[in-house]
């Protein structure tokens, strides 16, 4: 009894899959990426009824075509890794579209259990679903669940265990119309001559008739491809529609038939609170008022709470410093360890964590309640001018916390072009570290109005860069097609998990980079490399109109932006910057730090998502751009 069973959770987005995953695994999860893909993979282990079960949470998708990486990952996982069981989680209040997906799973010929989730919404609508009948029609076990209230999950687990123990389960079967079925049969028969098929024959046949591009490229036989061409042309002639439309319509026809047979209307529907909320949330005027006030409120809370927490953690660490300095190790090594390694860790905990933790928490709440989809709806028009659709606004908001998770979060976009544009724009968004500089330098010494002015400059720049990227990056902008989930009460377990997963990913990724970079920089100082670098930088200093010591701090900003301010204080031995810099210099300094180069962690994130070339080009591009704009600003300030 040492076998580990694999159970995959599949289903549409917004069906409560993550809640079920959480309940089944009890919080012990491993989150990573699918190999070679930028799609999140979550899995967990559990022991139930003497069985060891690995539960894999597949991405929330609507189809098994190749619209997005998520769909490819899911279908390859099911077809190639043969999970012992797939649990399809269905939104009971949205039966037809969920059955449409289920049918494709059935075509992959894996054992399936259906969880009829969010059943409470069905009841609110005054409907009832006959699960017995549904189970008969599908030939699959069906269990009603309300995951958010922990109802039906025990039964679901019992069924899963029974099936795993028995080792077999009905796979169900869907029959389409005569014309389609006969062509699927012909094609399946023809596929028999091919060896080593990666999917079941029926699945391949249907996907070929649907003109699935990936399937076409996987079938090497020209004979088969020619046969497919003949067959789908026949279908197109009979139905007068493209053959993919024919297949999709057939699926929906069967889904409607089944839905009609199992749903009965019992009572009048209650008024849907979600629709009422949408009247405000998506209102042409009030929707934006709500959005803007919410965003401002979030920033206020995050930065208020963040600076408080940051101060606390920072002073906690500085309490430790005297003890460390007492240690009996050589002084240079001591400085390297403290100023390099430990300060790096402190920065991570004291400067980044306090801001991004509450930020992620709020973001997860917005996501779980369904408000993020409303944000995408409201900002779609604006974002289209930058060549991306409304979903892009979400990583850009994330970017105000830190650019790194924003770049990783650009995965919400379906196509690579969109992800690239969003990520480049994200590097220009003032993250919490840059906010610290603008607040601590410009706002303190020049007044808040000038700080706001820098923000305005930055937003204009983002907009212009967006326009340019849209114009010059090859490809067509993608339009928005997005399900608008109903508003719902957030489930805090899920929110905390999401926050934790995001934080963990950030730390695993960014922390080593921050610490290494810090050690290298400290080494440079110890080895007295600062002098030569200063003189090498003097043309740049003159161009920007900054003192050379201030210019050199910009290099530190590549590590972490807020270091520029810290190093400025270190070099000048004062925090009263008005004594050492003119107001113009403060303004230029603030502006240049805001835009001049993404920090190392951000560059690494760009490299991970888009490769070396993009990371280098973006860094150099922003470096040159910042210099030119900074120089221009210097010139203008001198004239006026």
């Amino acid at each position, binding site marked *: 009894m040492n076998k580990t069973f694999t159970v995959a959770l599949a289903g549409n987005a917004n069906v409560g899959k993550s809640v079920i995953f959480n309940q089944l695994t009890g919080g012990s999860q491993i989150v990573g990426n699918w190999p070679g893909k930028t799609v999140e993979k979550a899995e967990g282990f559990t022991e139930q009824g003497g069985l060891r079960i690995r539960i894999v949470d597949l991405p929330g998708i609507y189809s098994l075509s190749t619209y997005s990486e998520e769909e490819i990952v899911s279908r390859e996982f099911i077809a190639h890794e043969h999970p012992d069981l797939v649990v399809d989680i269905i939104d009971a209040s949205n039966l*037809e579209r969920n059955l449409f997906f289920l049918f494709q799973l059935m075509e992959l010929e894996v054992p399936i259990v259906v969880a009829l989730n969010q059943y409470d919404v069905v009841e609110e609508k005054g409907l009832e679903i006959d699960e017995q009948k549904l189970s008969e029609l599908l030939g699959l076990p069906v269990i009603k669940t309300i995951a958010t209230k922990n109802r039906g999950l025990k039964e679901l687990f019992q069924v899963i265990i029974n099936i795993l123990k028995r080792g077999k389960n009905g796979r169900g079967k869907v029959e389409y119309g005569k014309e389609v079925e006969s062509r699927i049969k012909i094609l399946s028969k023809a596929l028999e001559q091919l060896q080593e098929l990666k999917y079941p024959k029926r699945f391949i046949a249907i996907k070929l008739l649907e003109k699935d591009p990936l399937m076409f490229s996987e079938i090497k036989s020209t004979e088969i491809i020619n046969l497919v061409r003949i067959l789908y042309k026949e279908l197109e002639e009979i139905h007068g529609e493209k053959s993919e*439309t024919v297949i999709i319509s057939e699926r929906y026809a069967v889904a409607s038939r089944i839905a009609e047979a199992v749903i009965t209307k019992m009572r009048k529907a209650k008024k849907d609170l979600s629709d009422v909320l949408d009247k405000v949330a998506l209102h042409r005027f009030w929707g934006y008022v709500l959005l803007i006030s919410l965003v401002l409120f979030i920033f206020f809370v995050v930065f208020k709470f963040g600076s408080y927490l940051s101060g606390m953690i920072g002073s906690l660490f500085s309490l430790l410093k005297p003890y460390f300095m007492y240690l009996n190790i050589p002084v240079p090594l001591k400085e390297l360890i403290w100023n390099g390694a430990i300060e790096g860790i402190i920065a991570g905990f004291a400067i980044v964590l306090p801001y991004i933790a509450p930020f992620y928490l709020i973001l997860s709440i917005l996501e779980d309640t369904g408000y993020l989809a409303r944000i995408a709806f409201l900002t779609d028009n604006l974002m*289209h001018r930058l060549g991306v659709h409304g979903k892009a606004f979400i990583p850009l908001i994330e970017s105000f916390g830190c650019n790194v998770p924003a770049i990783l979060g650009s995965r919400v976009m379906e196509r690579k072009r969109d992800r690239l544009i969003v990520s480049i724009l994200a590097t220009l968004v003032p993250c919490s570290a840059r906010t610290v500089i603008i607040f601590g330098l410009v706002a303190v010494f020049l007044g808040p109005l000038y700080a706001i002015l820098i923000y305005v400059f930055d937003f204009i720049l983002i907009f212009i860069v967006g326009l340019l990227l849209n114009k010059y990056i090859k490809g*067509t902008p*993608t339009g928005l097609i997005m399900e608008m989930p109903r508003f719902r009460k957030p489930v805090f377990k899920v929110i905390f998990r999401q926050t934790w997963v995001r934080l963990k990913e950030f730390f695993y990724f960014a922390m080593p980079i921050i610490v290494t970079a810090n050690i290298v920089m400290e080494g440079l100082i110890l080895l007295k490399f600062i002098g030569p670098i200063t003189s090498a930088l003097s043309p740049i200093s003159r161009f920007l109109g900054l003192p050379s010591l201030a210019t050199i701090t910009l290099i530190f900003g590549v590590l972490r932006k807020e270091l520029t301010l810290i190093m400025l204080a270190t070099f000048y031995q004062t925090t009263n910057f008005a004594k050492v810099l003119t107001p113009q210099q403060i303004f230029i300094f603030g502006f240049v730090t805001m835009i001049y180069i993404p920090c190392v962690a951000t560059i690494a994130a760009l490299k991970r998502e888009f490769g070396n070339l993009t990371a280098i080009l973006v860094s150099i591009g922003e470096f040159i751009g910042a210099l030119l704009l900074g120089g221009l600003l210097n010139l203008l300030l001198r004239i006026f």
Partner: protein
Amino acid sequence: MESKKILSSIVQGKKVKVVGFDYHMGLFSRHHHRLLRLHEANDLERHGVFFTRRLQEMGILPGEIIEVLRNGNIGPVEVIVKNSHLAIGRGIASRIYVEEIDE
């Protein structure tokens, strides 16, 4: 009934029947404000096939009756299709042909 319209032109609250899609956008792009080069036109067509497939998978199929729930002068159009709410970007919505149905 010869009243083929585009989805983005439908007043909110109306029910319409989907009749088809515009796969080709023509050689003049509203987005680029100029004539397209060949590779761009090809990309656009592939893109057209790509988004119509997704629309159909979400239930926007020829013959389907959908309700326009929200349609301002700018921004996406929200429709109810097969009991669920779907937001469709304005550009895409302007390439879905529909017929108004009398009630």
